[in-house]
């Protein structure tokens, strides 16, 4: 018989306001096995934990039930407390009387009754709990970073600096990501390339970092400490070991009509190309969709031009399999497509552009060589209108419900840069709210208004209509309570950002959570912001939510620290709540083996002693280091031989009984 202590937390008034904690404590004493109960204002505090520890020692408790917030919050806290005074941590169960009770009910009688039942179910379970000892498994001392933007680069550099191997897998031919496309960065206005490209070079030069560019992660199996990833290296049709990045081939290539991705399609590139001058790794790549050789079988100019003999039209995709102890997702973002925002005329008018396109126009390496010229007629725009929140904060199917976070600041930056370089240009910014939470951000925005004379108009733009070579912008000025019409030369849309389309696929591959907007879900919004809910998978950068560069870099480093902490261990403790097969009951039917997603079950011929009868039987055997404890096998097993430790059939049925009683 267990000796169980029940501890009811008030959580200040969070629980106590809706649940009569004294009543729950009193009711607990009527439950079988319960020898002690107590309530306390904050059970998770040091003194609250002290109460639990004292009771374990003084009352000789063999089991503990804490009625408090969700086990996702403090199960680990209380298990650790129990362990510190010699009680097996798995003898502790949480009854969730906050998220599942006090917070969703208003009536005290109802809340208390439910809390008592939830307590009762937890007590019923603990009565059947058994001490569990976690197994150990080895950690592969290498990390995989998916995505080679600033987030992935920073994470990789930090991990490598700690002495661990890191692989970066980047789907584009070069690392650098979106930051490489930016001209200047806020709020310091320093040149993006000047601060990014050295990092790119550092990453490439680091002996612990291996970059798989133009590659994609195809599949991932395994578990924390021991993942196996298949990486598909797409054919560049250029041998990386031979290409010197001289770029001669790109100059000779006769197919020059492909929109240049790096310049957001505002100029063209050749079929064999190097994305940009500072690309890392700097190897040419052939776009077979544009290459005349691939289309007609003729040409071959690049092959003939290349002295290094690097061009190889017969190159094939290659799949590499590598083992990793930890994986960091840093897949970044894209600007949304603006096809469904016809009112702004983006698809109709070349002079309606996105901010990222403006970024390229302003960049010295961009399509205009850094001169502010509008795309249609390459003239200098005299009047520019910026429109904020295009696709952000909306509820239509084409909108994103969230704030894209970076637009207010980069728009202030653009407005300021334009006013500085071209003081004759009038700049209007239509905004709904200007959001500047960040160090020196508000000051930056105020400078745009006060020092640079940018016209900020509170209101949204309703329509942009091309009219006699100008863009007639219909906006509202809510402070004037007026509709205003501006004939502009250039309209810049602050389009919403969304997670890269690969995020969803990767989340599925890694079996980690994704929210309704396809951002990856962190394990805890406040306390575990860079970890995913899946052990060994970490999040870096915008794949987790909109962020600016400083925030991305901090998160990237934070993710790196988590990875380093994991890789520093030689072995990690496994989840002890794993499947277990009763060898006397197992029929050897193989049903469990078929449903196991991890291949954790194997069948062995083993001599068993069935009540004195010795015979060799084919029985299931669970590899506890591989089993993740889903329980699929337990239901597939008809004989009841397979059970899940920590969630046994009898424990769950005891909970059912307690609830239905």
């Amino acid at each position, binding site marked *: 018989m267990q000796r169980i202590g029940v501890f009811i937390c008030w959580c200040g008034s969070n629980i106590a306001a809706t649940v009569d904690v004294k009543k729950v404590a009193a009711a607990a004493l009527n439950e079988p096995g319960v020898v002690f109960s107590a309530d306390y204002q904050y059970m998770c505090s040091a003194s609250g934990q002290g109460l639990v520890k004292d009771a374990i020692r003084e009352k000789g408790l063999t089991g503990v039930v804490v009625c408090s917030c969700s086990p996702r919050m403090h199960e680990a806290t209380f298990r650790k407390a129990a362990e510190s005074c010699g009680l097996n941590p798995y003898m502790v169960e949480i009854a969730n009387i906050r998220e599942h009770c006090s917070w969703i009910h208003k009536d005290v009688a109802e809340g208390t009754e439910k809390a008592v039942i939830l307590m009762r179910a937890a007590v019923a379970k603990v009565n059947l709990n058994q001490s569990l000892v976690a197994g150990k498994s080895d950690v592969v001392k290498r990390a995989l970073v998916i995505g080679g933007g600033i987030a992935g680069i920073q994470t990789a550099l930090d991990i490598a600096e700690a002495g661990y191997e890191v692989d970066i897998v980047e789907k584009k031919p070069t690392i650098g990501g979106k930051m490489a496309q930016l001209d200047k960065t806020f709020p310091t206005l320093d040149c993006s390339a000047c601060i990014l490209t050295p990092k790119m070079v550092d990453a490439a030069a680091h002996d612990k970092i291996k970059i798989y560019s133009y590659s994609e992660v195809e599949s991932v199996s395994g578990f924390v400490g021991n993942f196996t990833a298949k990486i598909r290296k797409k054919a560049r049709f250029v041998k990386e070991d031979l290409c010197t990045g001289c770029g001669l081939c790109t100059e000779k290539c006769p197919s020059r009509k492909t929109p240049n991705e790096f310049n957001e399609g505002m100029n063209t590139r050749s079929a064999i190309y190097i994305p940009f001058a500072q690309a890392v790794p700097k190897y040419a790549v052939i776009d077979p969709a544009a290459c005349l050789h691939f289309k007609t079988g003729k040409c071959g100019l690049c092959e003939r031009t290349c002295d290094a003999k690097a061009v190889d039209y017969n190159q094939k995709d290659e799949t590499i399999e590598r083992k990793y102890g930890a994986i960091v997702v840093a897949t970044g973002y894209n600007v949304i497509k603006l096809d*469904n*925002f*016809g*009112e702004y*005329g983006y*698809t*109709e008018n070349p002079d309606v552009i996105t901010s990222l396109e403006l970024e390229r126009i302003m960049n010295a390496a961009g399509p205009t060589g850094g001169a502010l010229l509008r795309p249609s007629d390459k003239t200098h725009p005299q009047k520019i209108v910026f429109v904020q929140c295009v696709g952000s904060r909306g509820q239509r199917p084409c909108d994103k419900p969230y704030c894209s976070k970076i637009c207010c600041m980069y728009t202030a930056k653009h407005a300021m840069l334009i006013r500085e370089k071209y003081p004759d240009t009038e700049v209007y910014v239509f905004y709904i709210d200007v959001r500047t939470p960040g160090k020196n951000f508000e000051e930056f925005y105020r400078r745009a208004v006060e020092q640079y004379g940018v016209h900020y108009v509170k209101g949204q733009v309703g*329509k*942009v*209509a*091309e*009219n*006699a070579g100008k863009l007639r912008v219909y906006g509202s000025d809510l402070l004037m309570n007026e509709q205003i019409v501006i004939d502009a030369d250039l309209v810049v849309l602050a389009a919403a950002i969304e997670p890269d389309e690969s995020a969803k696929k990767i989340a599925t591959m890694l079996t980690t959570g994704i929210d309704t907007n396809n951002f990856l879900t962190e394990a805890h919004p406040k306390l575990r912001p860079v970890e995913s809910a899946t052990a060994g998978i970490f999040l870096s950068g915008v794949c987790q939510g909109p962020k600016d560069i400083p925030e991305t870099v901090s998160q990237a480093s934070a993710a790196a620290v988590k990875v380093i902490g994991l890789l520093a261990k030689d072995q990690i403790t496994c989840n002890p709540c794993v499947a277990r097969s009763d060898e006397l009951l197992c029929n050897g039917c193989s049903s469990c083996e078929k449903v196991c997603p991890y291949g954790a079950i194997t069948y062995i011929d083993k001599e068993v002693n069935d009540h004195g009868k010795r015979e060799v039987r084919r029985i299931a055997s669970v590899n506890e280091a591989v089993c993740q404890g889903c329980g699929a096998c337990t239901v597939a097993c008809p004989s009841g031989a397979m059970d899940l430790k920590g969630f046994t059939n009898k424990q769950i049925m005891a909970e059912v009984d307690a609830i239905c009683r």
Partner: protein
Amino acid sequence: MKYSYYPGCTLKTKAKELDVYARKCAEKLGVELTEVDDWQCCGGVYTTSRDEIVTKLSSVRALNNAKERGQSLVTVCSACHNVIKRVNYDMANDAFVNAGANNYLQLATPYNGETKVIHFLELLRDEIGFENVKKAVVNPVKRRISAYYGCLLLRPGNVMAMDDPENPRIMEDFISAIGGTPVVSPYRNECCGAYLAVTDPAVPARHCGYITDSFKAKGAETVITACPLCMYNLKRNSGDLPVVYFSEILAEALGVK
């Protein structure tokens, strides 16, 4: 191809061209249009309030008539199309309006939005196909033509679902099919001033002013529309720029005018 056809009151009087040429063209294109039995006026405007049941009943009757025939319902007037299509949407999606209307009408079987409502332009695009219209053209209309959509054909976009409400293509594609050159103005989906013509003609005058100015500036020689009220407002304010119904220009192209 057999369809039920809802002409609407204006098409029997002031906008006979819209109706007559639509029928002729349909016949030429091998489409059989059968008028809805005892149709009544759609009311001219769709009343957006959910407690306005009676104003939606005539549309439901027409829709139910088509349903009983097992046919899709073709409209040609933008206003009728807007009203009928939106009422149909309500019947399918708004339980309150559905219950109210069915309670009034006491039909043999309740009407739940089963009928498909298609505008004549959609008939040309989706059922006949513009490429087939193109084949049937005997007299290509070699003019620079601006399409004026107005508001009724396109909005609300999720209900009308004819085309991109901000950047539509259907009439431009229609113009190309009959041999014309489409002239696109960003004002082609702005309102003409509508029924304010009755009380304050200055309002439509102003709107149609900048709309037709834009068409002219872009070099349009003709404007086409599907709405008698747009036609009225535009015509009075377009100066020398001719405005015709799309069905009339189609009839010209098909040689049935």
